[in-house]
């Protein structure tokens, strides 16, 4: 089959099994858009800003496990995509971004809409390719998907100069079924000896803790993690990125850990004697002060990326490999082992954990005449029966969603953890809804974040992706205000806007349904009404208590045992609990 470069790009995507491509046209990609126009299999989603394309593709990947695909033009199209590429990079999300480039002969001449996309994207991609020859397109595309999807996943950029897609130049096309790269061979199975050591250490624990992260979701190993955790009867905590990898409603789950983690999760970490870290990267929002991190614990760490191991915290038993086969192997060894977890020690440990739990660190004022954001999330959880895909933006609302929506399944919680990108939530919801048209998709957001990619409301209308926007409107950049309250004597420097738009009218202007909710008793009915409108995008502008803060909180530079709790509850002191 002879095809031109533009057709080869498109046909490669089809042969790779790509369903959707999120993009925005421009000069350098006109040949590509012409090729897209002349076929039916690959569906193009026209966003309203390239950042939206990247977040939608990224969320599609997070929800499905397949790579998200983006197409942008050179220059401003490419730079607009960078935030979304960096977002995917920080959370290890597989994505392939095709950027147009000025024609090869003029590269380097400051040509119209030229930027060095290879250079600009280099620090925030897993890898990037500049295509220099039309005969190399298919192979490069295959390599890009291979690199994006395997090992520790991540975004890959393919920069395609316009002359490479010239419709007049046709070459034979064949999409490779497989590629091998001599310089890229990510680990799969873990080292047997290390796995054996890990199991022995795990079974010898008196106060064990399992700390699992996004790697379990990326590695499709939730079932194995759940089986092993239940087999052992040990407590388990998840990072923000790992929520849903173990069912949140299971009694062995002690909640999220870290800066806004639960009291029981953080205290459990602090007092543990054996810590099993699975697909988690010891991020500073998780560890708090490194010198005080898990002072009593010997640490086992399973990660596919050797560079994640002993990066910030030295571990005792490193295992480099994919979580799934490693956990399978561990389960086998645990089942075969004559040593069983010490019943007595475990009972005492659970007793201690239950004491920590009994302070109910997530309790809040349920009698307030104002709408509490926590209440909204609890109601959202009930109305959607815990089955929705929840995307979020960045701020307090993100933490409330993480704390109060109990994710029982992986890939349901879609948020930007590593980069913390405001503007992520709405395009992400669109990407998820395209992947799962019959599922409930909620975007939990704030009045500041939502305005960063609000234009995608227009995309939602065009492609009929009825998502429900839950805007926790506290008239503040709440997360910023909270830090200013705690650390800057409440000097609220530029953390509020006094010209917040009328979101109801805005939603209506974009062709959607807008709702304004300012009484606690209206929250539940409004949510029910919104989710009953199966074919409409609904923007719920919910006016919440603007003074509410996220608790617990470990302020930066403090250790896990040093949490700020909601004082109004008369929480017992650590000493009383010990």
């Amino acid at each position, binding site marked *: 089959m002879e095809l031109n470069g533009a057709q080869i790009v498109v046909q490669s995507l089809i042969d790779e099994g790509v369903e959707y491509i999120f993009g925005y046209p421009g000069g350098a990609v006109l040949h590509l858009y012409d090729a897209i126009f002349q076929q039916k299999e690959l569906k193009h989603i026209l966003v309203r800003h390239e950042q939206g394309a990247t977040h939608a593709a990224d969320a599609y990947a997070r929800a499905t496990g397949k790579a998200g695909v983006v197409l942008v033009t050179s220059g401003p199209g490419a730079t607009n995509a960078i935030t979304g590429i960096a977002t995917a990079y920080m959370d290890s999300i597989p994505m392939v971004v095709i950027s147009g480039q000025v024609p090869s002969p003029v590269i380097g001449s400051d040509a119209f809409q030229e930027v060095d996309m290879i*250079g600009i994207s*280099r620090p925030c991609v897993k890898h990037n390719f*500049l295509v220099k020859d039309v005969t190399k397109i298919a192979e490069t595309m295959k390599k890009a998907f291979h690199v994006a999807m395997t090992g520790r996943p991540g975004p890959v950029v393919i920069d395609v100069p316009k002359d490479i897609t010239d419709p007049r130049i046709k070459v034979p096309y064949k999409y490779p079924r497989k590629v091998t790269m001599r*310089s890229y061979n990510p680990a799969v199975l873990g080292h047997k000896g290390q796995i054996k050591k890990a199991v022995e250490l795990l079974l010898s624990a008196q106060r064990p803790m399992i700390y699992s992260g996004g790697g379990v979701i990326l590695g499709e190993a939730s079932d194995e993690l759940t089986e092993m955790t239940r087999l052992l009867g040990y407590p388990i905590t998840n990072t923000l990125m790992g929520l849903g990898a173990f069912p949140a409603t299971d009694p062995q789950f002690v909640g999220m850990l870290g800066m806004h983690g639960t009291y029981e999760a953080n205290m459990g970490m602090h007092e543990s004697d054996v810590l099993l870290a699975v697909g988690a990267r010891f991020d500073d929002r998780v560890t708090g002060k490194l010198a005080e991190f898990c002072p009593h614990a010997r640490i086992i760490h399973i990660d596919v990326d*050797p*560079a994640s191991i002993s*990066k910030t915290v030295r571990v005792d038993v490193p295992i480099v490999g994919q979580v799934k086969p490693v956990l399978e192997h561990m389960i086998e060894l645990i089942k075969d082992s004559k040593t069983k977890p010490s019943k007595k020690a475990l009972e005492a440990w659970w007793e201690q954990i239950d004491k920590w739990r009994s302070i109910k660190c997530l309790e809040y004022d349920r009698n307030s005449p104002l709408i509490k954001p926590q209440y909204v999330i609890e109601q959202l959880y009930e109305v959607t029966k815990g089955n929705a895909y929840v995307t979020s933006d960045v701020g307090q609302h993100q933490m409330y969603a993480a704390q109060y929506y109990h994710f029982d399944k992986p890939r349901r919680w879609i948020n930007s953890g590593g980069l913390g990108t405001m503007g992520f939530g709405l395009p992400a919801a669109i990407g998820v809804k395209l992947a799962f048209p019959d599922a409930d998709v909620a975007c939990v957001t704030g009045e500041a974040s939502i305005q960063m990619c609000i234009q995608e409301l227009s995309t939602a209308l065009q492609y009929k992706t009825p998502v429900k926007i839950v805007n926790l409107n506290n008239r503040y950049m709440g997360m910023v205000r909270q830090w200013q309250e705690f650390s800057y004597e409440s000097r609220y420097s530029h953390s509020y806007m006094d010209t917040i738009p009328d979101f109801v009218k805005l939603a209506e202007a974009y062709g959607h349904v807008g709702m304004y909710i300012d009484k606690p008793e209206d929250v539940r009915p409004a949510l029910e009404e919104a989710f009953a409108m199966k074919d409409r995008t609904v923007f719920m502008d919910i006016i919440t208590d603007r003074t509410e803060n996220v608790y617990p909180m470990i302020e930066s530079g403090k250790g896990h045992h040093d949490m700020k709790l909601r004082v109004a509850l008369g929480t017992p002191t650590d000493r009383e609990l010990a």
Partner: protein
Amino acid sequence: MRHIISILIENESGALSRVAGLFSARGYNIESLTVAPTEDESLSRMTIVTCGSEEIIEQITKQLNKLIDVVKLIDLAGAPHVERELMLLKVKTTDQDRGEIKRIADIFRGRIIDVTSTTYVIEMTGPSDKLDAFIDALDKEKIIEVVRSGPTGISRGEKGLHL
């Protein structure tokens, strides 16, 4: 501690900037970096001299290995090896000190490879500290220019860095 890291990397455009970018983005030290093609033209060999604590060096080698274009890597400091650096040095000469400069160069096994009525260009290879010592042995005022390649190294014995 000082480490010499040797890398075989795909000979692609941009490969050098990936390595250099990694060092600057992560704030690692880089004392010198040399790069040249190898007998296999699809590969380049890079030699990086860096320093840092064991933890930092561990991260550096892991992060370098993680670069998709890096095919193989060794830390030469981990095993017996030899290292050499090339230096070209231009000095002012007068009728009085020509003999003296030549004698010092001979002691260090340097070769005079260019002569004018007022200058010498001396070529010298050796471990970096030998080159340092030679510079120290000369009168600072006389040195016009020093060009050093940065060290390259190779492990001893039968093992080698190849595919």
